[in-house]
């Protein structure tokens, strides 16, 4: 049960500024995912929270208690922070059996024997690996090692559980299994979790909140669906979502409380109510119209309000079909559930709900019109 607050955290490696003024609040019981491409500082943030790295600036509190105060050069030891960490490499001690691995930290805490035994059994049962208790790590498969690593972290009853890309070494199927496993653990233990990943699917499916990192800075902190619906800038929009979001160039003009946008698909007018607080340039300015592929609905026949476009390519993949379309010089993608057959160069008609469209200022790259 804990609330973590990071204030103005800066971390340098030599002259390399890897964390730039990180401010983040993680509420009690959150499943907070730190998401971003590799080298953006998410693992460093996790290590700062754990106490394995010491930031040069900033303050961190856990439940109001100061754990880091860089001004006073105060850094609480990792073991005094009431947390535990699952490493990307699992970091299971190869010379200890599963039992010894899990009991190690409990023995160091000098817990009574029966308590150690109880926690050992509980965490093994929870991860469903009771039968491997006397095996050595190298006698286990990757997925089993992963479970031992989580069991070891959970056994210490941490208030805060840190997970550093724990699924990246597993194959695709195991990854999906472990995703539901982790969600279940979060529910059962009620522990606050900080989870680092570069995989947006993991982030979107498991977390209660996502912190999106960009080059050492936090660019957006939101609930998963909010992040998906309204990425704060073009880079975030491009990063989140698979297949990628469609970007179409256009021009905008803001007049009398209305935003008018022209692009090769159609002309749109948006209400002030849908707009963000970003500053809008005067006069005509370049914008980027962003449309999720699943928001592009295709009909074979002309219907009122539908736009004629040309099919460039067609990729049926069983459960879904990706269709590349062309409108004038702009290419864009449509995603349809199920199988659909279109022939190349065929003319089809598309429907796009204007409410689901994001508009970005092309110059500042920031979101100016939200989707609903």
């Amino acid at each position, binding site marked *: 049960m804990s609330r973590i607050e990071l204030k103005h955290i800066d971390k340098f490696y030599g002259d390399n500024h890897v964390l730039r003024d990180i401010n983040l609040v993680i509420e009690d019981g959150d499943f907070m995912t730190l998401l971003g491409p590799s080298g953006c500082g998410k693992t460093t943030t996790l290590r700062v929270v754990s106490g394995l790295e010491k930031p040069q600036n900033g303050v961190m509190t856990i439940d109001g208690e100061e754990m880091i105060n860089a001004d006073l*050069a105060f850094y609480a030891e990792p073991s005094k922070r009431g947390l535990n960490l699952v490493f990307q490499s699992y970091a299971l001690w190869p010379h200890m059996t599963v039992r010894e691995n899990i009991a190690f930290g409990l023995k160091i805490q000098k817990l009574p024997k029966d308590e150690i035994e109880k926690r050992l059994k509980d965490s093994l049962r929870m991860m469903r690996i009771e039968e491997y208790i006397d095996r050595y790590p190298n006698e286990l498969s990757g997925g089993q090692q992963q479970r031992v690593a989580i069991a070891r972290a959970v056994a210490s009853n941490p208030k805060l559980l840190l997970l550093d890309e724990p699924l990246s070494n597993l194959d695709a199927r195991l990854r999906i299994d472990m995703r539901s496993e982790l969600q279940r653990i979060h529910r059962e233990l009620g522990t606050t979790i900080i989870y680092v990943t570069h995989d947006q699917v993991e982030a979107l499916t498991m977390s209660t909140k996502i912190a999106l990192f960009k080059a050492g800075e936090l660019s957006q902190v939101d609930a998963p669906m909010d992040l998906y619906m309204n990425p704060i800038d073009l880079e975030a929009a491009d990063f989140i979502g698979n297949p990628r979001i469609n970007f179409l160039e256009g021009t905008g003009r803001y007049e009398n409380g209305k935003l008018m946008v022209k692009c090769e698909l159609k002309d749109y007018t948006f209400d002030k109510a849908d707009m963000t607080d970003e500053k809008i340039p005067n006069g005509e300015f370049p914008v980027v119209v962003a449309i999720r592929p699943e928001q592009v609905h295709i009909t074979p026949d002309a219907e009122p309000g539908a736009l004629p476009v040309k099919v460039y390519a067609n990729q049926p993949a069983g459960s879904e079909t990706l269709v590349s379309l062309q409108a004038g010089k702009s290419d864009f993608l449509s995603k349809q559930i199920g199988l659909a057959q279109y022939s190349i160069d065929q003319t089809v008609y598309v429907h796009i709900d204007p409410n689901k469209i994001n508009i970005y200022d092309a110059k500042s790259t920031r979101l100016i019109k939200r989707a609903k």
Partner: protein
Amino acid sequence: MKRKRERRPFNKTRLKNQILNVVKNPFNMIVAISLVVLFCLIVIPLLQMVASTFTVAKSEAKRIGDPVGSFTLYYWRYLLVGKLSGATLWGPLKNSLVVGVFTVIVSVPLGSVLGWLMVRSDIPGKKLMGMLVVIPYMIPSWCKALAWLAVFRNKTSGSLGFLAGLGIPIPDWLAYGPVAIVLCMSLHYYAFSYIHVSSALRSINSELEEMGEICGANKVQILKSITLPLVLPSILSAVVMTLSKSIGTYGVAANLGSRIGYFTLATKMKTFINGSPQAVGYAMSLVLIGLAALIIFSNQRIIGVRKSYATIGGKGGRSNEMHLGGAKVPLMMFLVVFLFFAMVAPMFVLVMETFQVTTGNGYGPDNLTLYNWIGTVDEARTYTNYAGIFKNKEFGSAVYNTIRLTFIGSIITALCGQFLGYISTRGRGKWYGSATEQLVFVPYLMSGVAFSSMYVAMFSQARLGGLIPSLYGTFTLIVLTSVVKHFPFASRSGTANMMQIAVELEEAADINGANFWQRMGKIVLPLAKNGFISGFMLTFISIAKELDLIIIMMDKHTQTMSYLAFTYSQEGYNQMADAISVCVLLFILVCYIIANRFGADIGKAW
């Protein structure tokens, strides 16, 4: 918002916390202590030696005319421009370079071909051959020199060798001097090239060669344009090691050169250090150090960038073998001939000589005796001062000293090596990590004789107002010298060992509440155990073989088997010298076999 690392105003709590952060972490303390110790054991002696070449010593005070302890350029002038400098410096320097270069020319191709045959060809009996091929390296180089003498000795040194005994006239140029030295050293230092090239070949992905084959290249073309360029960096570093090692080698050059007045830098230097003016000897050892540093750093310059691809292709596990076809028989013959000349023949002659009454007199029953092993002085058929080695008290004490030195020395060295390795791996990229790595590397630049002369200069008198007592002539000094000289190798094996222990394993323990000592005891040490044992065994062998390093410091009380054999050989008791070398050989071979049991790889030894 861009922010910088700011300097903060002074704050008491902050200062207190900063100090606590450093002091409360035992790792910091260990790093600090190691750096201080390394500084005292490596930097100070070196500076001390440099200083002594510029300071008037007691023995020369009269000649120079300045008071003892004042600054002088006398020694350097004596060495560089004096009347005798041709004989003291330039002649020996030329000899050293000639010997070094020719050793490279012979040993590097030899070792490389052997390495290629063992790794990449389908030569039969590879497993057995692979073991036999490294055995000549196990034989100490000075033993090889004695074996050479046993075969080629002629009238010049009194008693005849095997060939002269058969009535074959052996000219001096073959028995002694540069040819003998080069061949003896080549049969030793081929191992560097063998080890380097074979491990490089093992790491190269054979797909690279297969691609060449698909492109239509024949075997010779593949070897020439794909394999050779890929292993070139390792061949070059073998060249550098061979060159710097052979220039500084003492034992071989002394046994084979001194008696016809053929001096190298190393042998000439020792005559100065044992006699006078000592400081000239120190100046010569600085020249040797400079030479080694020059060779090594120029190598890093030349192949520094390209070195990176020496380890290309992690998938080396699946390597195909090249079919030798018709070349199989001649190459097999080459291997057999090599093993015969490098191992069988000299060992046979060496062992047989220990049973001879007169060397070079054949193996007839009237010339065979066990005297050299178990005889007493009054049983001797020829004039001698010494009883057979097993009845000889000196030999007993030499065995004791050897075992004592190797055990104590290698335990300390291996322990320090693990610690230093720990510091340099955990401090990788930090200043103390690279400082440790560089300090530890310094002894590698020095030949054994140069290094020990430095230590003699440093510890022959009490230092720091008696805090460090005079260690001159003590066993402690010999142990200390052996330990520090083997630091580079030991810490390299320690580093390799510690690299295998991922930092996360320690961090995981840290998060689970283990303090530094608990982490060391429960995580690092148990995981480092095997690496430690193999590192220990390799150091053990290397100290047991050592002659060059400790020869300056030895006397009757502290002498080891190597030194005793060397003395006997110099005094002309060849059979006994041989008998002792046979004992040393057996000792090393037994250790090697035990080390192999623990998975020690001789490829990691220098």
